[in-house]
Every structure is written in structure tokens, then in C-alpha cells.
């Protein structure tokens, strides 16, 4: 089983040189810590920054420089600042190559739910609906099951959805899975020490298991 940092570490392996990437709040933000040396990517923050750098030192903190999670950040050399309209023009126009975000549920069709639990919780969709409707390549970072053991990889989402048929890949605490164009979760890799049966039991949607499933290399 992977912890949050483990999930982030595995997702970092998906990153290719030259990519522009949007990282969502939570685990996705951690991915930045594990991008290999020599891989040049640019991180986009939808509140108006290309080129997010590390968190600032105490004396560098600037209230006017935050990421989409409202955390104070720095800028790398070669950064650019812009408005929210320009930011989503970039996103909608397909200029951001990869979006990594969290989810409450994903369906075997690639639908994603992550913004609302009716009657209980409303965070709002923020930029997530724009991101999932626009990105060519979407990777979801999530827990495979809820705290009370309910699967979050479903036949159909039970919560109000954020976008349809958009998720391409999932990295959970248990596995790496691909969402197939015709539907279904194809098991690609197991987390260290996790068996195929454990993953089967934790997946409500159709799980496709073909041949030997390798363990992740982290």
C-alpha cells in the first residue's frame, strides 16, 4: 500500500520532458517533489502562474504569490503571470499537456466526481470541471476505497460528477489502472505488497486483469 507521497512518487514517473502540467490540490501538489532530475516541465497554477517553484523560505513569503491551493509559492526563472481568463484559455485551448487531480469517485467509463456530496459537503468545482473537460491527458490520484471500506472505483459514480469520460489513468494507494476507451479499469501495476485479489476486492467497477501484473518500481 502506498501513502500519499508514494502515490505522488509513482505519478511523477508519468511526467515527460517538455510537458506543461496542472497539479490539483492535495496529493497532486506533492508530485512536484518527485519529478526526476533532467526532466524539464512547467507547472501551471490556474490562478495565474506558469512556472511554480518550491515553497518560499520564511523571508521570501509573498501574500501576492500563491498557488491554486492558496499556499504561498515562489516562481522559477522564466515564469509568467496572467489573469484567470488567460489561464483557462490555456487550459481550454489544450495547451496544458497533463492534468493531475484528486477524486472522490471514478467510474469505469472515466467519469469523475470530486466537488460535492449532496446535503453534506460542497467545496465547489473550482477549476476542476474546466480542467477535466479540456485536458488531453488526465491522471487521478486517489484512495482506492473510503475509510469505511467502500470502493471508489465504480461502475457508475454515485456523487454528482465533475466530468464525463475524461479520466485516462488512476494511481491509487493499491494500483495503477488505465481507463479503457470501451470502459473498464485495466490493471497495470500493483502497489508494493498488494495482491491482485486485494485490488479485485477493492474495485466495484469491471477490473481487467491480463497476464502477470508487475509490482510498481518506486
Amino acid at each position, binding site marked *: 500500500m502506498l501513502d500519499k507521497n508514494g502515490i505522488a512518487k509513482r505519478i511523477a514517473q508519468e511526467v515527460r520532458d517538455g510537458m506543461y502540467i496542472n497539479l490539483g490540490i492535495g496529493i497532486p501538489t506533492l508530485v512536484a517533489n518527485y519529478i526526476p532530475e533532467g526532466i524539464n516541465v512547467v507547472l501551471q497554477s490556474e490562478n495565474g*502562474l506558469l512556472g511554480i517553484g518550491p515553497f*518560499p523560505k520564511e523571508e521570501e513569503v509573498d501574500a501576492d504569490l*500563491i498557488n491554486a491551493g492558496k499556499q504561498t509559492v515562489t516562481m522559477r526563472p522564466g515564469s509568467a503571470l496572467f489573469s*484567470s481568463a488567460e489561464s483557462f484559455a490555456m487550459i481550454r485551448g489544450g495547451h496544458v499537456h497533463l492534468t493531475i487531480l484528486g477524486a472522490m469517485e471514478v467510474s469505469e467509463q472515466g467519469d469523475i466526481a470530486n466537488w460535492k456530496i449532496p446535503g453534506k459537503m*460542497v467545496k465547489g468545482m473550482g*477549476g476542476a470541471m474546466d480542467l477535466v*473537460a479540456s485536458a488531453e491527458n488526465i491522471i487521478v490520484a486517489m484512495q482506492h476505497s473510503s475509510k469505511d471500506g467502500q470502493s471508489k472505483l465504480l461502475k457508475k459514480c454515485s456523487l*454528482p460528477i465533475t466530468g464525463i469520460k475524461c479520466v485516462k489513468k488512476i494511481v491509487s494507494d493499491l494500483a495503477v489502472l488505465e481507463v479503457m476507451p470501451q470502459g473498464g479499469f485495466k490493471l497495470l501495476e500493483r502497489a508494493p505488497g498488494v495482491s491482485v485479489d486485494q485490488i479485485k476486492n477493492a474495485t466495484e467497477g469491471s477490473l481487467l486483469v491480463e497476464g502477470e501484473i508487475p509490482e510498481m518500481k518506486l
Partner: protein
Amino acid sequence: MINKVVKNAQEAVHDIPDNAVLMLGGFGLCGIPENCISALLKKGVKGLTCISNNAGVDDFGIGLMLKTRQVRKMISSYVGENAEFERQLLSGELEVELIPQGTLAERIRAGGAGIPAFFTPAGVGTEVAEGKETRVFDGKTYLMESWLKADFAIVKAWKGDTAGNLIYKGTARNFNPMMATAGKITIAEVEELVPLGSLDPNEIHTPGIYVQRIFQGNAYEKRIEQRTVTRI
């Protein structure tokens, strides 16, 4: 050039009536018009519709106006950090319209740019699409969304000149430039009001044509929601 300077926040908001539709710039607490929000609290204007990406936090920003129940309706994309906002929303005390952030930004730009409607893929197949026209372009489905305008747009900039030209700083730019274009009356509060000719015309983010009133704000708190630092 035309001089747009008013004395202070109180003068800038003096004629905002009850039930007005307002836009307020900012993303989280970053780039919010602190002085005008204080003046609106003091003025006690009621029944407001506020278009703003967030609603501040419980004890700062628009959150303060939610507490005093001056807001009838919020049009936002994210509630996240504001417990009072979420409570009023879930209890039905506050009318809330949640809009995808990119759609919100583009609808406001459209309002300022004279474009009554446009198509976007955000929200297709979700409850955001309910009641909206959809159309397929190049095999992909899009929603038709309409422009947003306000009676008063209230923005915060870093520097501004007497003609209303504005320059923002860092990620405090966010929604401010579009909102500046979409108000019947646009009010800009700036950290530094400079004389005409001090700003490089090539570096201006919001041309003065969009701004009707400008003043230098004071005592900016610039509260940070998530102070995150690297420890070395």
C-alpha cells in the same frame, strides 16, 4: 486624460444601493479589495448579489459580509475554505450559484467584451449543464454560456494612475482584469496611486477606459490562507 480619482473607499461605494449586483476581484484572499469591503460593511448595504470566485474566509474578505447577512446571493466557483459560507449554502439561507472557474472567468470577460454567449466544454454531462443548450463542434460537445455583467465591479490593483490604468502584482491579478471590464461602474482600489505618465503604457494590465473611480487604499492586511514555507 480623464481624472478618475475619488477620495477613499467610502466615496467610491457611496452610491451602491441595496440589491445591487457586484463583482469583487480576488482568488481566495489574494487580490481582494479590502478597503471597499470594509466600506460596504460600514455602509450596511443589503440584499447584494456578489460575483466572486470565492467568498473569503469566515472572518476576512467577503466572509465578513456573509456574517452580517448583507449578501442575498453568491455567484462563485469555490466554497472550500469558508465554513460559514458552506453552512449558509447547505441550510438554504444563502442563494448560491456555483460556476466552473474557467466558465466564470470567461463569462465575465464576455460581459466586458460585448459577447452575449459562447461555447465551452466545461460542465458537459454534469448538473451545470441542466437547462443549457448543447452543441457539437468537431465531434465534441459544448455548452452555451452567457455573459455576466455587474452594476459595480470592485477590483484591487498594485499600482494605478489617475486615468485609471492598472497594474496588478503576482497572482493577485486573477479575476481583477476581467471584472474591471464588466461593471457599469468599475471601482479600483490600488496600493499606490501614481501621477499620470508614471506607468509604462506597454506594461498596463487594465487600460483606464474600463475604470470610472480610483483611489489609494490603506492598511492592507493581505492575509495569507496557507502560509507554506520550505525549511532548510
